[in-house]
């Protein structure tokens, strides 16, 4: 057993877990944060993407014990004060989902993608290439791509306004 302590969505949590507990199991079963989904548990589908110390990772391929001491953000931690994150708002506006299973991972990957490219507006080719690690079996990706493009424009505008 391992004692793990980490900050999840701004809150410090400490638990004793089995050594083999995956980060995604810890989030879902330990903390009840079921927004992070498990599709394949072999790092192919991207449904379990969360941010660890600001970087997107597949939480099915990392042990909870490895994340001890880290700062973790899940889909539940993106909105602030009842206001959706711009990427969440864009997925809603552009209907970037059907069944919604892949959506948390898509959104967490999209936030990481926009940040990694410097916060500027992203073109369609970049978004499609970057989405290689997130599988959606409903939408054909088209509205997901539109939502991420729109969110990246909104966020580029916010960044410019802030400077």
């Amino acid at each position: 057993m391992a004692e793990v302590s980490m900050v999840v969505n701004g809150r410090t949590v400490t638990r004793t877990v089995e050594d083999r507990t995956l980060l995604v199991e810890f989030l879902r079963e330990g903390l009840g944060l079921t927004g992070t989904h498990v599709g394949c548990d072999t790092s192919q589908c991207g449904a379990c993407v969360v941010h660890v110390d600001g970087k997107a990772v597949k939480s099915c391929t990392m042990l909870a014990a490895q994340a001890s001491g880290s700062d973790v953000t899940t889909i539940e931690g993106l909105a602030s004060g009842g206001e959706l994150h711009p990427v969440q708002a864009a997925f809603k506006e552009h209907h970037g989902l059907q069944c919604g299973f892949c959506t948390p991972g898509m959104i967490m990957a999209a936030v990481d993608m926009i940040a990694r490219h410097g916060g500027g507006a992203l073109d369609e080719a970049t978004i499609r290439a970057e989405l290689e690690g997130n599988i959606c079996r409903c939408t054909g990706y088209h509205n997901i791509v539109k939502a991420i493009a729109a969110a990246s424009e909104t966020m580029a505008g916010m960044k410019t306004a802030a400077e």
Partner: protein
Amino acid sequence: MKAAAAGYIRANDLPHAISLLEQSRGEARILAGGQSLIASLNLRLAGETALIDINGVAELSGIELVGEQLRIGALTRHRELASSDLVARHVPAIAQAAPLIAHAAIRNRGTIGGSLAYADPAAELPACMLALDAQIVVRGPAGERRVRAGDFFVDLFTTDLAEDEMIVAVEVPVAVAGERQATMELARRSGDYALAGIVLVDRPSGVRAAFFGVGPTPILATGAMAAIDRGASPDEAAALLEGDLQPLDDVHAPAAVRLHLARVLLRRALAATRS
């Protein structure tokens, strides 16, 4: 499925990691990025094993120029390889290979040491090491030794590492004036393991072409290389690959398809380095 890990311990520093490895007598495995290891524990492809987490071992990180070599720490993430100016300038084959590895979220975790120790025959970085004639720096209880990439990859998922040794770094010769490098692959889907891939290092003194996905280890195409150095055309060199490579039939592609793709890649890579 629940992962089959039987124990987890964080190494504080390199001597601690080596000592844990030695004490485990082959029962423990080094956990770096975990992007293949944890997935295989989830799939129960890897048996019950204790894990020695080296992610906190600071001396395993970092990229630095040491004389005519670029020394890359074993814990260097694929994302860092893709964005490093030193890598782009001195070993462009690695800079080109890094974005081809899996997906962004995996590149954020996966490490060069992990990729080399795992030795997947379709992986990009082992072929980079072979084409670049890099040395793998490994350490065990008896100390440190250097293994040339050509001697390191022994067979399918099998390396020259002893059970009490771990990779600490790689040392890669930097590109000389006039040298061109190209890494290319063909996969069914973006982010998949390649059906075939090439790392071409085109030095004024001679060419080295390492292929991946076409045999049990990365393979140096010595016949084609010698022909290119003698002035053979890309088509003539590509025709010799049948004698150089050992593609296997598998569920993803028949051997003949992989050989064909290797020929296509050799022509494309030569076009890129000699354009």
